[in-house]
């Protein structure tokens, strides 16, 4: 019995010591260092208006659907861009739902609203082409019509942004060159010049556009 009790005592005590050090001291130390060195980032990269209103996070996508704004990737986080329910569609490559969508119909065959309605790739491609004036067989950038893993992807590809630019310029009555310059300014390049892929931060881009022509 003695070895068993010794083991039990050591297990309980070591668990307590670890709990204090690893669950108390360690995260607190990271918190203190993060606060001292990178206070804005450690608090969530929040975008705050002059009056103190938090408008979102520079790292998280939020919903934009009007012609005046650049539009983020579609989102499967909760009911869309829900930052407390991050996630993707988790639909596989042979999913009919993912390809063709789900649309509830009434007895007459007309679309009706239903919480299970889901836009498939086909629907998203059609909507993207229509909204941005693309031809019926023009290829659509993959990121524009697929949902990201987090549902909160703040970026769109540069190609996607450039395709949306003429529409936004028209809706805002702003020269196309101005919009393009704002796209370049809102582009996060590859880390260290070669890691990852470049992306345009949609929320920052729309904020920048609002500053030149208030909505």
């Amino acid at each position, binding site marked *: 019995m003695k070895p068993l009790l010794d083991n039990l005592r*050591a297990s309980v005590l070591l668990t307590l010591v670890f709990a204090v050090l690893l669950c108390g001291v360690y995260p607190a130390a990271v918190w203190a260092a993060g606060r001292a060195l990178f206070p804005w980032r450690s608090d969530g990269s929040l*975008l705050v208006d002059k009056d103190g209103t938090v408008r979102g996070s520079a790292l998280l996508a939020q919903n934009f659907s009007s012609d005046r704004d650049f539009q983020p990737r579609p989102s499967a986080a909760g009911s869309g861009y829900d930052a407390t329910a991050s*996630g993707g569609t988790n639909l596989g490559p042979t999913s009919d739902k993912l390809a063709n969508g789900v649309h509830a119909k009434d007895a007459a065959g007309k679309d009706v609203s239903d919480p299970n309605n889901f836009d498939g790739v086909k629907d998203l491609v059609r909507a993207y082409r229509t909204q941005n004036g693309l031809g019926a067989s023009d290829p659509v950038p993959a990121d524009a019509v697929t949902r990201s893993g*987090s549902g909160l992807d703040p970026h769109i590809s540069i190609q996607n942004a450039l395709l949306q630019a003429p529409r936004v310029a028209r809706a805002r009555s702003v020269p196309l060159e101005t919009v393009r310059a704002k796209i370049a300014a809102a582009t996060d390049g590859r880390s260290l010049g070669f*890691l990852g892929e470049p992306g345009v931060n949609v929320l920052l881009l729309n904020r920048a556009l609002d500053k030149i022509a208030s909505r």
Partner: protein
Amino acid sequence: MHSPNSWLQLALFVAALVAVTKPLGLYLVRVLDATARTWLDPVVRPVERLTYRLCGIDPLLEQGWASYTMSMLTFSLVGMLLTYFVLRFQDHLPLNPQGLPGLAPHLAFNTAASFTTNTNWQSYAGESTMSYFSQMVALTIHNFTSAAVGIAIAAALVRGVARQSARTIGNFWTDTVRVTYYLLVPFCLVFAVVLVSQGVIQNFKPYTVAKTYEPYTIQVPKTDSAGKPVMAADGKTPVLVDQSVDTQTIVQGPVASQVAIKMLGTNGGGYTNANAAHPFENPTPLSNFLQVLSIFAIPSALTYYLGRMVMNQRHGWAVWGAMFAMFAVGLGVCWRAEQRGNPIHQSLGISAADGNMEGKEVRFGIFNSALFATVTTDASCGAVNAMHDSFTPIGGLVPLFNMQTGEVIFGGVGAGLYGMLIFVVLAVFIAGLMVGRTPEYLGKKIEAYDVKLVMLVLMALAATVLVFTAWASISAWGQAGLNNAGPHGFSEILYAYSSAVANNGSAFAGLTAAPADGNPHWDVTLAFAMLVGRFLMIVPILALAGNLAGKKLIPASAGTFRTEGPTFVVLLIGTVVLVGALTFLPALAMGPVVEHYLMTSGTLF
């Protein structure tokens, strides 16, 4: 579009991995020797001594394998109980600003088993289930301890190989404490702060409510005053009402400290549901690169530790080489499949050059998503930066196969090395049979008892995966959790049990293991699979370590099969692949392989 840029990233990754292997391996030699000194001694040594004194541990007392095993099992059980009860009663505990309720018994059991076994399978959604206290104490403590225990077991097995005519294999408590204090904590402290610099959050604020730019309308079920959904006249369909959404609730919390250890300790349990795909956990390509590298760092260094301890560095590199070759092939296959994309979606208008972007983040793109998926399933990490469920069939087959090899391609911290040594013993046994000599491993005769232990491990793991997969596939509770139909649904089941037994923890995440109706089958079977995958592996391995330690060394002769060089590497890879492939090939054929051909022919489910 295998762009030159992707190749450059790959080259940098490989170079960085090779560069950390030797220095970190040498450091491990010192960490795992209770009498050795490290450069952290002035700071850490007093804490270490105090810990031993408080816990009544004699740090220099050597343990036999049975004693070592008892200590390990007791320690794991205590940790598991702690987690279980914290989760059950988190509503009565501090640091719960969201007022989240306690977890149901089966979900708490599943999660406790999951974190104790270094799996970090997450049946729950992090941001909407766990209080800060649960995340910080009940879960984070296992991120450290399960990793430290894994490394301790690996060290015990290596000692068993290295020692001769010995009765002991080290001290469990000393190994666990030293790995935690000298390796995991200091590295994580630095790593976490670097992650904060990239945008990973670290705070203790309640969730922030942001006023969004463009309100939009969603439809939610109408509820009566008691909170029950109101039904339409037919009594079945819920009545819907419009609800305007003009805010976004932003998750906050101590994320960076958890992300650092979840990667370095190959735990993989994310703070948020989307794990390393979430911009708060993995905001930039640089944070992504460091996270991928940190998954492989310790497992890779442990091969160097092995070579150093058995005084045969070429053997250590041979094991590394076998791991690396399998990693490289897996990455190549996954990367190519994802870059080619989905012909069904391309026929609907998606640009073919962009690859399969469903479930992937723009900042990572195809290459970094494929790299992360391969690395996280080679090692038993299980964090994901893209949704594996939405990978192409072949792209998704690679993670599945990686886990089914038993997580020996670098593998989990410690677990990868001891898992691989199981295959090494099997490989020399097969080689011995082929040339008709008594098999030897580094001067130790491999006898019937050793091979029986090895086969016990391999058969227990494979049988657990396949039996549970079969059961779930033909049961209503099993099919109820699926998010996809057709062969992909079967892949979701196979992936779940492969991940649980391998202690990986990644998922074809469409699977719902904790259904709304509270059916506990998934949670309980997965928890059982995780416990088998961890402890039915560790206990025979410690028995093997004890048995090997007691053997005499016999000098190498002309007939000795050498455990270094290309012949050994090829034989070792062959053993891993054949054991993995032969056992799981029929199941893989019914899942991803058949789905690949159906996708090519445009079939949808």
